[in-house]
């Protein structure tokens, strides 16, 4: 695991083969243009959130902000505290759903991934194949059916309607299993088994510490999905709705809310980005084993 990283790090010291100057220059230019297109809207979103109200309505429109203010963020928090469902409630909902859903997903997916990767038992191949095939369709289009099931279970309009389905996202299990396949050697587990260690203990104290990058990756994906979750058919009580829904209601408040809406867009997008920046190297390492062989 760590040797792989080291190999990557030393790469820049070696001579690069087959690289023409012209090609390098061309690639750099293309990267700059593409990168510019990527960043400008995000940058603009941040600038927008620091503009005082009158700067939104100048002609011709200005890209940069001339008198930056944090008023929009202040207003956002003020509006939050005066909305009829207290805004702290929306924050609590999203944080609670994101944390509980991510935690459950991590536990369920790691346990299952360990079994599918490291235990010799009948049926494990079939189970993994099913999970892998389920990556091939979008859970979103199954929304109506999920709703039918949730209604039958009596979970409509409860937190469970969002939290429990998150536990079984197939991407997380897939990435975890692939990572275990290539990073946890069977010999270590075998020797622990010979010492008489119980399977669950081997899972918990040997396998889990070795796949830290994979669980950080699972955390960021599950967290990001739940954090960004908007309005759901299965949740209609205002007190249970997500931060995203609450913020878009504020933003929908017309021209006077332009600044607040810009601030809320930034709040929503910045959290997952920061989490990714912190965990990036782990995510990339996990993706190293994401390959699909059938």
């Amino acid at each position, binding site marked *: 695991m760590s040797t792989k990283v080291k190999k*990557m790090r030393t*790469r*820049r010291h070696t001579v690069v083969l*087959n690289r023409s100057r012209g*090609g390098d220059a061309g690639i750099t230019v*293309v*990267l700059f243009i*593409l990168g510019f*297109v*990527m*960043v400008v*809207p*995000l940058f*603009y979103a941040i600038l*927008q959130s620091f503009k005082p109200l009158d700067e939104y309505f100048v*002609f*011709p*429109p200005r*890209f940069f902000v001339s008198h930056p203010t944090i008023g929009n963020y202040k207003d956002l928090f003020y509006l939050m505290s005066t909305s009829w469902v207290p805004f702290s409630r929306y924050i609590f909902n999203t944080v609670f759903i994101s944390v509980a859903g991510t935690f459950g997903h991590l536990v*369920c*997916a790691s*346990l*299952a991934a360990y*079994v*599918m990767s490291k235990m*010799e*038992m009948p049926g494990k191949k079939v*189970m993994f194949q099913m999970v892998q095939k*389920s*990556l*091939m369709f*979008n859970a979103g*289009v*199954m*929304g*109506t059916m999920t709703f039918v*099931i949730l209604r039958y279970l009596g979970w409509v309009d409860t937190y469970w309607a969002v939290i429990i389905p998150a536990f*079984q996202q*197939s*991407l997380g299990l897939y990435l975890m299993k692939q990572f275990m396949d290539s990073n946890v050697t069977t010999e270590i587990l075998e020797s622990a*088994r010979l010492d008489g260690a119980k*399977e*669950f203990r081997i899972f918990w104290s040997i396998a889990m510490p070795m796949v830290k990058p994979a669980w950080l990756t699972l955390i960021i994906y599950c967290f*990001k999905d739940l954090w*960004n979750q*908007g309005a759901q058919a299965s949740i209609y009580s205002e007190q249970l709705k997500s931060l*995203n829904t609450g913020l*878009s209601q504020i933003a929908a408040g017309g021209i006077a809310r332009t600044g607040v809406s*810009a601030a809320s867009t930034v709040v929503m*997008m910045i959290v*997952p*980005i920061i989490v990714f920046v912190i965990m990036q190297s782990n995510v*990339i390492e996990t*993706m*190293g084993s*994401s*390959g*699909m*062989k*059938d």
Partner: protein
Amino acid sequence: MAKETKVVSRKNMTKRAWTWHLMKQNKIGYLMVAPYMILFFLFTFTPVVLSLVIGFTDFNMLQFPNFVGMSNYVTMFLDDELFITALKWTLFFALVTGPASYLLSFIVAWFINDLDPRIRAIVTVVFYAPSLGGNAYLIWETLFSGDSYGWVNGWLIKLGVLSTPIQFFQNKSYILPLVIIVALWQSLGISFLAFIAGLQGIDRSQYEAAAIDGVKNRWQEAWYVTLPNMKSQLMFGAVMAITGAFGFGGIVTALCGNPPVDYVGYTLAHHITEYGTVRWEVGYSSALTFVMFLIMIGANLLVTKIISKVGQSA
């Protein structure tokens, strides 16, 4: 310990008895896999089966469903013009944004592969950020806002190109290009990261060997060394891209409303939601879902088959 008993006892057992023995020996394994598999069964497997079954009924959530045979499917293809429109747009996005986002992900990942690791980390965040911030696309609404205070409109008027602002998201000739741009802007997602990691994982000695064997430039190198070596990542990336492209619809709703003007960009995802959770014609919505399921799985199997051929002739 477990292994020894295995070897000794297998000889005098039928295949079935052996399986049973293994199952008993791994009881704890089934216990560990159970929480995930039960939920997977409930929320992934059952919805697919359910959509097939309910698709043959007129279920509406209130009354007990009646069996109606193929009538939902007949209606879909013969009587529902909007379905044909939705199917058309779904295939359009799948064929345009799907491959485009896939290529873009690969090309960017490939271009940044030779960079210094620290710079590469920063560039990765730059390209990946739009897909992380879930509702970040809302900013395009501001840039292309329909009044003269929208940045694009404002400058086009100022420069004398326009006299009145364009309602970009309400005008059917602008909806498509804009939606595609925004979709591509947000499309460097998980496959992009998989490609970066895949490229990093290729052993350097292979490139050196290829150079000795007469590979002249980076393009040949990509074809003969890089692509065949990251086939499994290419496969995974393709599945992610296809699944994403077929489920497309959220951006259209957010930017152009639902339904969009003249149903430009109205996809099956919209159509399913419309019948499922707006009109409560769950039977019909199920049939639509099942068709969508078949299309997605079919496209994926086809593409993964094609990709498994990459580098085989080389």
